[in-house]
């Protein structure tokens, strides 16, 4: 019996490129990607993890602090945790998935403690495991990923997926930005863990999250779900990047003249802030934080105070201007559609984890932000990593496979017009940032936006391959464009208000639309409807 190599093999490659032969390729090195890579490696798979930035600092988690949906395994506590957000989520969650994510999150959080994560201990001596400091957590995850034998490619954005003759995912290729060359990984299964899409809004840590994995997966034929749930906005100081909406629970929001903005609140009143911001500046002061709270805030989230400490603002006593930054599908719940318990997508050999995958199963249509997304990253990362390793093990011999590239826009020679990534990104932002288009949706405005977005797609489809220096930005902006089209087409299809999706023309929730919206397609974007599991049973019983 031969001992199975645990590392991916670097194989010979043409000049200007590197090539690896692996069982599992994980694209994305945030928490979901790291958990997927570790879980696949623990199953004996040879794993490569390709990260656009640096695995350990890249993504929405590393820069922030996050709650974790960590609940002790007592039936009453678990029941309450599941019931807690069902109404807010428009009853689109799935109890079976929630239970499984709670189990896995509990298990993996406890492993983090074993690995040395410095969880705080409360006055009763109990280790508190429902919050993680992003830099600390992701530094540890990088270390564990390396120790698991995973080959990490940093600063290595993937550009396109490879598929075999049968259309199954078989690897990817991309750039090594700091080596100025290209990489190719041939694998038997691929996990997309590229995060959501926040449209370069500078919401904390999210500018690496441009929906790249969505575009690559769609080019290979994958589908999406719940993309209408894609319009949360986070509160930050107007000049700054630190979005920590929870802390604004202690804020009073005022107009320029000092008058209180009616109904404005971080929770349940953010739309009032959005409406006020369309009229003029809005200010906040955290004047409801008293007693020990300011000190606890400071130690729990030191980065929240950087914008204030460095500008001489005391946020507890001074008024400062605020804004709302779009978080898109990073804290929305739409993403790649998952078809089974291993987080497989509709493409054979292709798995999705973390914010790249839909979080409808545990969040419904309400934000996955904070604790639920963190729990989902740990759990779906584990499910997808194990699923991909299992798929790879049963894939059989791959010698002689003929692989082809699936990339489209910005990668094909067209010789018609040059590709201009910065202009395209700006044009997409102009459609998805405005509150009157995305926060408050309406058929006419969504339709107008889609016409412009579809026209942009035709334009970029006809554009020439981007120049080598530009191709990475070109693919990012094309991913943002594709994401916006799935979002708004799904938003048009849901003719009601549910979860975070609010329609001015359909202000109420409609019981007949307790279903999921599937979407997909590139040149032609389509949507269809899938029943919610419970709704389907109820209908069958009638």
């Amino acid at each position, binding site marked *: 019996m031969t001992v199975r190599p645990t590392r991916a093999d670097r194989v010979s490659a043409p000049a200007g490129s590197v090539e690896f032969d692996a069982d599992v390729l994980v694209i994305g090195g945030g928490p979901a990607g790291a958990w997927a890579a570790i879980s696949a490696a623990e199953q004996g798979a040879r794993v490569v993890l390709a990260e656009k*930035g640096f695995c350990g600092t*890249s993504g929405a988690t590393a820069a922030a602090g996050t709650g974790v949906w960590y609940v002790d395994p007592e039936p009453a506590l678990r029941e309450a945790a599941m019931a807690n957000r069902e109404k807010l989520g428009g009853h689109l969650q799935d109890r079976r998935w929630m239970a499984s994510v709670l189990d896995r999150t509990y298990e993996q959080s406890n492993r983090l403690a074993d690995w040395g994560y*410095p969880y705080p201990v409360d006055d009763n001596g109990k280790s508190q495991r429902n919050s993680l400091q992003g830099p600390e957590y992701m530094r540890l995850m990088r270390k564990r990923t390396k120790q698991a034998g995973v080959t990490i490619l940093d600063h290595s954005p993937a550009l396109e997926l490879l598929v075999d003759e049968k259309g199954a995912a078989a690897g990817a290729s991309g750039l090594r*930005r700091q080596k100025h060359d290209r990489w190719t990984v041939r694998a038997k299964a691929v996990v997309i863990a590229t995060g959501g899409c926040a449209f370069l809004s500078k919401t904390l840590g*999210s500018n690496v999250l441009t929906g790249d994995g969505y575009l690559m997966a769609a080019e290979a034929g994958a589908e999406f779900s719940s993309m209408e749930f894609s319009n949360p906005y986070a509160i930050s100081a107007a000049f700054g990047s630190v979005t920590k909406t929870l802390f604004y629970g202690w804020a009073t929001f005022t107009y320029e003249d000092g008058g209180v903005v009616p109904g404005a609140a971080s929770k349940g009143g953010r739309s009032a802030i959005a409406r006020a911001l369309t009229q003029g500046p809005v200010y906040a002061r955290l004047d409801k934080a008293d007693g020990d709270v300011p000190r*606890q805030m400071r130690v729990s989230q030191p980065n929240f105070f950087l914008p204030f400490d460095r500008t001489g603002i005391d946020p507890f006593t001074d008024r400062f201007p605020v804004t709302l930054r779009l978080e898109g599908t990073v804290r929305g719940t739409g993403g790649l559609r998952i078809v089974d318990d291993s987080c497989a997508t509709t493409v054979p050999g292709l798995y999705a984890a973390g914010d790249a995958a839909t979080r409808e199963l545990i969040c419904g249509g309400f934000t996955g932000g904070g604790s639920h997304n963190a729990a989902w990253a740990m759990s779906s990362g584990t499910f997808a990593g194990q699923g991909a390793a299992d798929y790879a093990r049963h894939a059989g011999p791959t010698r002689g496979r003929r692989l082809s590239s699936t990339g489209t826009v910005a990668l094909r020679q067209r010789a018609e017009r040059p590709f201009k990534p910065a202009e395209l990104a700006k044009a997409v932002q102009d459609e998805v940032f405005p509150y009157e288009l995305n926060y408050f949706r309406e058929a006419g405005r969504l339709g107008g936006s889609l016409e412009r977005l579809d026209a942009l797609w035709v334009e970029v489809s006809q554009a020439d391959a981007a120049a080598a220096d530009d191709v990475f930005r070109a693919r990012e902006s094309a991913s943002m464009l594709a994401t916006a089209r799935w979002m708004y087409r799904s938003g048009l299809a849901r003719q009601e208000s549910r979860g975070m999706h609010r329609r001015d023309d359909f202000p109420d929730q409609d019981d007949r639309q307790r279903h999921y919206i599937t979407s997909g397609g590139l040149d032609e974007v389509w949507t269809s409807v899938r029943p919610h599991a419970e709704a389907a049973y109820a209908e069958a019983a009638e």
Partner: protein
Amino acid sequence: MIEVIDAQRCTSCDICVNVCPTNVFDKTDGFPVIARQDDCQTCFLCELYCPEDALFVSPFADIPQNVDLEALRQNALLGSYRRAVGWTEETKHHRDIDRSYLLFGH
């Protein structure tokens, strides 16, 4: 955005070049340089990883600022984030100081 690399403190270890998630820095024969300031997402992580407290990220995410390096040194603003999260020898007891469980009533 990242505004300054303090040449008095920088040892050219190039950690910032490696860890920046948006690849803002470039290596040179001497000190690293801020080569793509526009790409900075103001996440402050380069500061955390700099062992010499040689970097300063201004909190202004969209507009470059003129910073007074001497004032930053005097006001102990260089390295302030790293000290706050407990990533220095003197402050490592801060690493488990998170009190979110009290704030959010879990």
